[in-house]
């Protein structure tokens, strides 16, 4: 407005702020929308059968039609992921603490933990079903064996990277190993631990789905497997979409947790 010259003063800055904010995610959104559009077009133009590749519109329809079933399955899977993730963090932290605090036990345990890491754990799923049945237990067990390792490893790295001269300071005033562990090593390891926790969150999603593949009567993994036997590929994709949403949600939950637990970590100090 030409008769309101002053209101225009702030506009260029606002516009550029908005431009800066959108320019960071706009390319990704454009690519995503373009991919979906191309996908829809290819499926329609070449008349590809829905049980081979369903069009995005068919996936959306399936999502809406099966909404209640899918939501119920999502809740079941989310519960497994959350429970399994928490157990993995607790066990992973406990193993790391034992390895660092009890030198002898650590030297016995650490090689075994690394050795176990080389077992293809997805292959353990049928055994867990055999041992624990079709309920929650085999899923938690599978998530645990898949997800505890990054927690243990990252916390160990953090606890063992304490500066030697800081340890000298502590030793000079007669600090006990337990004091050094809980006052220095554990808090010092938290930024590393939170990074490991984010990896564990992602792996927990995989663990839950694999566990449901191997044997379940509920959950998104079960829906995927059931729908694929029915050649309902659109429903498979709809469930996959929800698994991805769960994965992203857990990852960001872990990231928010990180900001709460270690606001002093170098990563956040510039903000």
């Amino acid at each position, binding site marked *: 407005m030409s008769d309101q010259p002053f209101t225009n003063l702030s506009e260029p800055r606002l516009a550029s702020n908005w431009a800066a904010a959108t320019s960071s995610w706009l390319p990704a959104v454009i690519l995503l929308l373009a991919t979906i559009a191309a996908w829809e077009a290819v499926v329609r133009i070449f008349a590809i059968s829905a049980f081979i590749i369903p069009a995005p519109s068919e996936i959306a329809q399936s999502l809406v039609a099966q909404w209640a079933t899918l939501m119920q399955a999502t809740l079941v899977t989310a519960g497994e992921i959350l429970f399994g993730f928490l157990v993995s963090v607790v066990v992973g932290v406990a193993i790391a603490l034992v390895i660092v605090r009890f030198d002898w036990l650590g030297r016995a345990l650490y090689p075994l933990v690394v050795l176990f890491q080389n077992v293809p754990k997805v292959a353990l799923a049928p055994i867990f079903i055999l041992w624990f049945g079709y309920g929650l237990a085999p899923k938690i067990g599978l998530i645990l064996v898949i997800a505890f390792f990054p927690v243990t490893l990252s916390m160990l790295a953090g606890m063992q990277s304490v*500066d030697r*001269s*800081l340890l*000298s*300071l*502590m*030793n*000079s*005033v*007669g*600090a006990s190993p337990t*004091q050094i562990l809980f*006052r*220095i090593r554990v*808090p*010092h390891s*938290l930024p590393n631990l939170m990074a490991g926790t984010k990896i564990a969150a992602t792996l927990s999603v995989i663990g839950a789905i694999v566990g449901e593949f191997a044997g379940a009567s509920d959950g998104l993994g079960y829906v995927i497997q059931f729908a694929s036997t029915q050649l309902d590929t659109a429903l498979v994709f709809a469930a996959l979409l929800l698994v991805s949403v769960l994965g992203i949600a857990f990852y960001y939950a872990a990231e928010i947790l990180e900001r709460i637990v*270690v606001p*002093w*970590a*170098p990563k956040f*100090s510039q903000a």
Partner: protein
Amino acid sequence: MRIEPIRAAGGRPAHIRHDDDLIAAKGVSVVMARQLVLQNIDLAIPKGSFVSLIGPSGCGKSTLLKVLAGLVNPTSGSVSIAGLSPVEAARKRMIGLVFQDANLLPWKNAVDNASMLLGIADKSLSRAELRARGQEMLELVGLGDSAHKRPNELSGGMRQRVAIARALALDPAVLLMDEPFGALDAITRDSMGQSLLEIWQRTGKTIVLVTHSIDEAIHLSRHVHVLGIKPGRITESLDIGLPYPRDLSVTEDPEFVRLVVQLRTMLRASHQPGGAS
């Protein structure tokens, strides 16, 4: 056993002990990884003095400081701090340590960092008492108004001030400092040195400073010991006669300039390997 005295340039032989010596090292040798790091060190540090150890890289001056702190055991020889072994002295909170890296805990603020070691050394102190002590020490080092800042909000010089406050909170008899200002820029370094002098004069602590800097050694110390390499040993000792209190203007004093030249000559000689002796 009689050891040939190493003649101090302007005073008594470095190793001759007086009643007022707080720290006495006798015939200290250290072998690490089959290398003779320190050879037959005799050192007497009078109570309340400010002593610098200077020498080329690899002369073992940091190792000597660690021996005095009880962090490294001498292979032979002995160290006494007020009649105690260094480890005993450290347990009685007689030794304050400051390293080149401040090594503050990033999750604690300045005042909690300053009282952290004291809290471990004396479990009877309450949280409020520790805070009060930490605050008092921060004020002593000129950081009274930064008590609630975290290390990442402090400059390098301020972090090192907190590290000094942390050492002083133990109320130690001696402050052992290993290149405490080595990572700081020249201007910050000068003002830190000046602050350290003021703290020294106010508290009457005995200070042993390991440094690379000739100017810093002369500006601050009453006695300077020069260490030579291969093996690490005390080659010369120099008394700094400049009167206290000193400030930075002392660096323009003709006597200061003369001492710089003298110490530089000694340091040059200390770079020559000593061979067998």
